[in-house]
């Protein structure tokens, strides 16, 4: 990866290269580990403010691409209007708050419900929060941390807490609330609160933890000297999805074990460019290992930022097609499962094409329970689609043992279905041969088998027969090779049974 430095890397902002030593820049894990250490060592603290400032603008750009209703847009415009600016609240702080408000609304599908005309501007919210902290002196931290206290900021926190008390609380919520990230990724930090906990009374430790938790929101007010620091902390304590700040196009895939770090997550515009790059690279190099890894990280970035739109569909569709082409059915199945959810939300894409693949896939895996579900998914409208109709016909031909029809369909498969059918066509050839050997006596011309079972030539047919039985079954007579069906006995039945053993594919549900 470091051997060829792509042009975009050299254009990376100066802030970035100053923050990270160049050697560490390309790979992501080492950077992450370093950052977590930096959390508690003083000298690196200085780098923290520099990042949000440089990433704030692409951030809002990314958001702006999502379709927002006009009232939201005008609300945002009012936020940035010069006459509405408050001296004590810096622009980054305001932006952070605004992002908070909109993300939360979008997440909860309340974009259309909130009265944007009357909602206080983010700068006002920040001020209110500060006033509240001033009104409650630090000794009464208890009171301010009670969810009962009114106000926009606390209301928001309350909703998090409320969610948490319910059992179905998603992991990232728990993580943020318990500062899970601190505990998991920085083992050294865990000791400190433990020691204080042993020394001081329990309630004091609780107070300490509350204060720490509060720093995320109130930090901006308490230390106005580092205003840009607050978005950074707020992102940690954030309740919503991550908003990425990473500008790198390529990124290796790593399985997440803790809350994602916004610095290593790419926002939508970057992801779009990344996809173009990947498409180009796939065409040029065709290196599947690399492409698959890149797509997985792309999907991960989409997920942690909860981006669900046409672009998401496109990413999954392309990855699914590439995986199909390479016969990587595990990966294909993951994409297919996700696509099913995405199509259900009417985000565009090619639902019928993939419904057809899904049916063919379940034929291959012989998962009848899932097949029943897939059939239930097919609507009357879908059945008019060529690919869906084809897949349904394939399924029914196989269910009835109609190999004649099956191989006609095989030779005329739309889209990329042939990649899937190739996976089980030999299996079905054995089934067909088992049937034919039982029914035809005393022999048949091999030409007939070639035509019925979609072989390319008599040679290929003969090879297939020899591979799966014995050579006594073939006999040359009057210039034609004949298959002695009468002598086949149960040879093909055995081969068929072996080929039909349960298919096990990694990643299968």
């Amino acid at each position, binding site marked *: 990866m470091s051997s060829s430095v792509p042009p975009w890397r050299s254009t990376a902002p100066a802030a970035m290269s100053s923050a990270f030593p160049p050697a560490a820049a390309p790979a992501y894990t080492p950077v992450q580990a370093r950052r977590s250490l930096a959390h508690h060592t003083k000298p690196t603290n200085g780098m923290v403010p520099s990042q949000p400032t440089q990433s704030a603008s692409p951030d809002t750009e990314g958001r702006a691409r999502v379709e927002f209703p006009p009232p939201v847009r005008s609300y945002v415009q009012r936020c940035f209007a010069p006459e509405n600016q408050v001296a004590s609240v810096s622009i980054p702080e305001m932006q952070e708050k605004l992002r908070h408000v909109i993300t939360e609304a979008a*997440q*909860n*599908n309340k974009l259309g419900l909130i009265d944007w005309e009357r909602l206080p501007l983010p700068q006002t919210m920040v001020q209110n929060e500060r006033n509240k902290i001033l009104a409650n002196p630090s000794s009464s931290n208890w009171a301010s941390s009670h969810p009962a206290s009114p106000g926009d900021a606390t209301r928001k926190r309350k909703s998090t807490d409320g969610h948490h008390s*319910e*059992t*179905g*609380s*998603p*992991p*990232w*919520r728990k993580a943020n609330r318990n500062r899970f990230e601190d505990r998991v990724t920085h083992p050294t930090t865990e000791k400190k609160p433990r020691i204080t906990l042993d020394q001081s009374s329990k309630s004091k430790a609780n107070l300490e933890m509350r204060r720490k938790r509060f720093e995320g929101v109130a930090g901006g007010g308490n230390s106005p000297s580092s205003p840009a620091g607050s978005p950074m902390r707020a992102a940690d304590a954030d309740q919503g999805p991550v908003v990425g700040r990473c500008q790198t196009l390529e990124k290796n*895939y790593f*399985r*997440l*074990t*803790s*809350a*994602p770090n916004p610095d290593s997550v790419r926002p939508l515009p970057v992801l779009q460019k990344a996809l173009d790059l990947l498409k180009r690279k796939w065409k040029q190099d065709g290196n599947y290992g690399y492409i698959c890894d890149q797509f*997985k990280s792309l*999907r*991960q970035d*989409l*997920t*942690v930022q*909860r981006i*669900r739109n046409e672009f*998401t569909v496109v990413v999954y569709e392309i990855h699914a097609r590439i995986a199909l082409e390479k016969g990587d059915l595990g990966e294909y199945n*993951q994409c297919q*499962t*996700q696509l*099913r*959810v*995405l199509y*259900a939300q009417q985000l565009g894409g090619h639902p019928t094409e993939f419904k057809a693949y899904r049916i063919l896939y379940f034929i291959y895996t012989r998962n*009848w*329970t899932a*097949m*029943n*579900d897939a*059939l*239930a998914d097919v609507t009357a409208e879908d059945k008019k689609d060529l690919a869906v109709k084809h897949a349904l016909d394939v399924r*029914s031909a196989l*269910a*009835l*043992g*109609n*190999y*004649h*029809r099956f191989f006609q369909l095989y030779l005329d498969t739309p889209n990329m279905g042939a990649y899937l059918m190739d996976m089980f066509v030999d299996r079905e050839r054995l089934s067909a041969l*088992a*049937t*034919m050997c*039982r*029914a*035809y*006596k005393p022999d*048949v*011309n091999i030409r007939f088998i070639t*035509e*019925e079972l979609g072989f390319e030539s008599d040679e290929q047919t003969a090879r297939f027969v020899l591979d799966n039985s014995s050579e006594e079954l073939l006999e040359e007579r009057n210039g034609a090779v004949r298959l002695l069906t009468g002598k086949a006995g149960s040879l093909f039945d055995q081969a068929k049974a072996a080929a039909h053993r349960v298919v096990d594919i990694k990643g299968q549900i």
Partner: protein
Amino acid sequence: MTSLGSLAPAFKNAYLNGSGPELAAVLTPIAPSEDPGRLRSFYNFSTAEYLSKDLSYGLFHGKSLKLPKAEQAAWVDIFAAYWEAIGEILRCEDRIPGASVIAVFNAWKKVANALIRGYSGPAGIPAWTLPCLYTVGKYMRTFAINADLEAASQGSAGFGFQDDIAADVEKNANLEEAARVINRMFTLCLSDRAPLEESRKWGIYNMTNLLFKTYFKINSVGLTKNLLRAISASSADLPPPEVFPKSQIVTFEYYVGVIHFLDENYTEAEEHLTYAWKMCHRDATKNRELILTYLIPCHLVTTHTLPTKELLAPFPRLEKLFRPLSNCIRKGDLVGFDQAMSDGEAEFVKRRIYLPLERGRDIALRNLFRKVFLAGGFDEPKEGQSPVRRTRVHVNEFAAALRVGTSTSGRSRIDIDEVECLLSNLIYKGLMKGYIARDRGIIVLSKGGSAFPGTGV
């Protein structure tokens, strides 16, 4: 102040009588019809602060009921959780803002957990109280389903650290949670090592059935296999099924049958479903209908038999579901069969019987070809011998039969190769006896009345 209403005497009586069902009735989250205010008066008798004191006084004060200290504490815990849950239920009933079915479910789950602790912990609640476990489990399932509906209507969205968008797993989040708790109840019953007379093993089929029901609902039929494995592993220690209440065994056998059915093990499925069918109470119409829904397709696949009019007479819905298809199969009407399949598709798929029913087409085909054979008549009788059916039939005759009815519908033409393919399938599956002599274009059928086994010719 500290009067539990009718609840305390009911509890004491049930305990003194040693009656599990009576005790379970006390733990029901629905007020009995003769005392509609019971829940409310029970909830109003105390406050969160004095709850445990009030409960231990109300339930165990006096000389009538003496229980070991640990068991008393367990019941106080159970009823404390129950009190909380009743509070949530009443809040829902009163439509107090902020009340939610999710809260009811979560509170009820605590009742279940307190109960499980009561059985497994030092309190050692005796096994005769097991009906409490079913009752609590049963209502937990109901509350969970309602909670999921409520969550879905609120459109909550949650995410884990997954690489992909969380699928529709959340749709059943509460029910899945309930399934986990019921699974603990299952283990609680199965793993009890007490002597059989006082063992919780007697609760095993009831808990299993509840769990089956839940797994089917959350579409995780695969998980039922674990239960079956666990039961069969300890089958030596379990009382034989015959000594359990019939209702429990019938339900159990039905589910086991359906599980095999979904795996396409129709022979095993038929065995279990037949057992359930024979044992099922004859007035349990709905259950009998459910059993038949799967037993009829089973029979079609395994023995090629169709349901009679008499069998389906008490079940008009099944008659409607299966009759058109059965008629077409009987007549060998392929066009009608395809039409009936596509007409009933939505319903068949919903009931998961589409795939086995589709196999009925082979039987329809067999019946059609049998007609061709019969129409072929007899060979010239040899002198002094009874006439013999013509057993050499030209492929074209079968092809003609297939074209009947299809010419008008404008379906794709049927070529001879496909006819041969259909014939060879019937021969392979044993529905027809004979062979295809391709070079001569004829089918040589078996002589002596076995050309179509089981049909008399």
